[in-house]
């Protein structure tokens, strides 16, 4: 018995654990009906984990508190809405523009790029936007960065909401609360296979799992790269990092861009799965929801953030609405638990920050910073020169 924990500690043991988890994750949908609620929840979980891992690059690695992460979800989702739906009817004549689109979609006017092309577009657009949002924060520190990113997130949410007033030619920018819908389903041109969320959720799940593996891979490679070490140096002491030759501007902008790119991919995936891009999905509370995942798991710890995101996503999509929603009324209280979901996340944020600021599965280095006060010059009671 004692050999097992020892084995799990070794490199091979860790590989085996990860492989096992992946295998279970890959086989998970076969245990359920092809339209089961559990599968629907699992697809959201995958998308949320991707977003949390993206935010983890900005908040966890580089230590830049981003309160406007929802902007990249919005950009990813709208990229799908613009480039893979009949939103721009009439562009490219009556036939529209089609690139590697399925037979069914090819008969519909508008712009229809293949899902995977759109994901790449979403990634690029989000990365550019991320760097753009990062620009004004370069000279700022700490909490001012948080507020500037929050303001950008709100501006983008507002533009999405009022986008039906912004028109160019006959086209509205976003359709506002009317939503851009329907959106093309993913299509594999080589295999001539089109996803269909009305009949089978499994392909979506597997596509999400592949995207998540890609996100995890990117996260690990970035963390262990020269750039990743630069981020950590920046987080611990900006001045020291700069004097050691870390280029501040490029390093910070790359953190924003990388985080945003992953958010864009997740947003595109989720937009396609939702089959409707509605402006009311992009609210400040969502940014905080994703931030709560990162903090719960442990800022900077990739597996921790993954676990935190899975936990919160399951709580948000499954436990609260499906299982516990009637709990208050069984105590004779007149409300549904879903009304409280964001209060619950707010409570979690406070609780974790006060009791265990390093998160549930902390990264060793970050834990030392948070609990033993490395970089105490950032703390409230600094002695000013």
């Amino acid at each position, binding site marked *: 018995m004692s050999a097992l924990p020892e084995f799990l500690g070794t490199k091979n043991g860790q590989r085996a654990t990860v492989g096992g988890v992946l295998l279970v994750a890959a086989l998970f949908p076969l245990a359920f009906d092809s339209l089961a609620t559990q599968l629907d929840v699992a697809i959201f979980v995958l998308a949320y984990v991707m977003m949390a891992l993206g935010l983890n690059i900005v908040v966890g690695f580089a230590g830049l508190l981003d309160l406007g992460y929802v902007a990249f979800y919005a950009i990813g989702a709208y990229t799908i809405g613009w480039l893979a739906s009949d939103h721009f009817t009439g562009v490219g004549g009556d036939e529209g523009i089609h690139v590697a689109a399925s037979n069914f979609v090819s008969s519909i006017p508008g712009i229809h790029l293949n899902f995977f092309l759109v994901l790449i577009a979403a990634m690029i657009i989000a990365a550019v936007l991320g760097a753009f949002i990062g620009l004004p924060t370069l000279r700022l*520190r700490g*909490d001012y960065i948080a507020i500037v990113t929050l303001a950008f997130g709100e*501006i983008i949410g507002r533009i999405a909401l009022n986008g039906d007033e912004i028109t160019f030619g006959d086209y509205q920018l976003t359709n506002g609360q009317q939503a851009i819908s329907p959106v093309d389903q993913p299509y594999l041109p080589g295999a001539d296979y089109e996803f269909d969320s009305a009949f089978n959720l499994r392909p979506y799940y597997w596509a999400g799992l592949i995207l998540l593996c890609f996100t995890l891979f990117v996260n690990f490679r970035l963390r262990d790269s020269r750039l990743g070490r630069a981020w950590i140096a920046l987080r611990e002491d900006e001045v020291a990092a700069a004097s050691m030759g870390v280029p501040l501007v490029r390093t910070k902008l790359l953190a924003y861009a990388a985080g945003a790119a992953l958010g864009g991919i997740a947003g595109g995936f989720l937009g396609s799965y939702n089959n409707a891009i509605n402006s009311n999905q992009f609210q400040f509370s969502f940014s905080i929801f994703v931030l709560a995942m990162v903090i719960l798991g442990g800022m900077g710890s990739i597996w921790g953030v993954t676990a935190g995101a899975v936990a919160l996503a399951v709580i948000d999509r499954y436990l609260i609405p499906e299982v516990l929603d009637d709990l208050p009324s069984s105590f004779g209280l007149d409300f549904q638990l879903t009304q409280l979901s964001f209060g619950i996340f707010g409570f*979690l*944020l406070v609780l974790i920050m006060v009791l265990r*600021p390093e998160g549930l599965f902390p990264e060793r280095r970050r834990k030392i910073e948070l609990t033993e006060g490395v970089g105490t010059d950032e703390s409230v*009671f600094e002695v000013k020169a």
Partner: protein
Amino acid sequence: MNAPTVPWSQRPAVVGVRAFFGRFGLVLTLLVLPVVYGIQDLSEDGDLSRLGNNLMDGLSNGAIWALIALGYTLVYGIIELINFAHGEVFMIGSFVAASFWGTLGLTLTTGLPGLVIGLLATLIVAMLTCASLNVMIERVAYRPLRNAPKLAPLITAVGFSFILQNVGILWRGGSQQGVDNLIRQEEEVFQLVGVIISRGDLLAIGVTVPLVFVVTSFIARSRLGKAMRATAQDPEAARLMGINVDQTISLTFLLGGLLAGAAGLVYALYQTNVWFFQGFTAGLIAFTAAVMGGIGNLRGAVLGGLIIGCIQQISDNRIGGEWTPVIVFGYLILIMTFRPRGLLGEQTREAG
């Protein structure tokens, strides 16, 4: 900042332009909206009274933002924390006020003496509730993190803001809720060159001006105010001088809460509706005001509140209320990026 020793006329043009924008750029940017719409009004009918009315409404709205902005600026001045939950404390103040005057039985038919006494009592209750709430939040969510990295208390502040929003939802539901227009706020009292001064305007300004006066002179004159200023300047040294730093910080939150409670009552009477989300919007507007004035600077917060109120009112009236947040946040980003010390503030660490 050294005063320029070279006369303007002898300096290269580029440096002159840069210095000019460095000094007056923010003022010029703030003047864009009123000037544009003033010219538009003048060219259309030669009458500036519409703009005048916008500005008047803006000032009374701005008076409410100023009260909230003072809370932000006080707290930031002393512990360098953006008290994100402050807007929600203000929202709770509105809710308490509306409920308490209902309990007192104030209705549209209440006579003047009853109304005045009732509203004064409501004001006190709202102020005290918000003050104790604010102090409680500091104890629970900020004090344990005093020595943690600066972002930790900001995160708990955001968390608390969500908790309070949910309290608001449970209390009065998720949509805007009308309250009795007790003072018939839109009724005209008098006119000044075409600008209508309503009861609501008088109320907002009549509550704000004395409160601001009392708070500023408390901080400037009293012993406790002196302790606050000392703590803001250097907490360690203040502690060595025998000042109870924890108590002083609590006092700061108490003051902020008192002002937020007053703002809550005025808001409920002025807007005649309350909802759980008002605190989030108001909080960000007021924070913009505090930053605009120069965070940590009391006069700056009041000035910023009044200016942002005018901008918001012009934007509501001319561009459309749904775009107002974009304009306000646009200003917030511009100011934080190009002039983090605001109109009246001093150089801060954030300015780099």
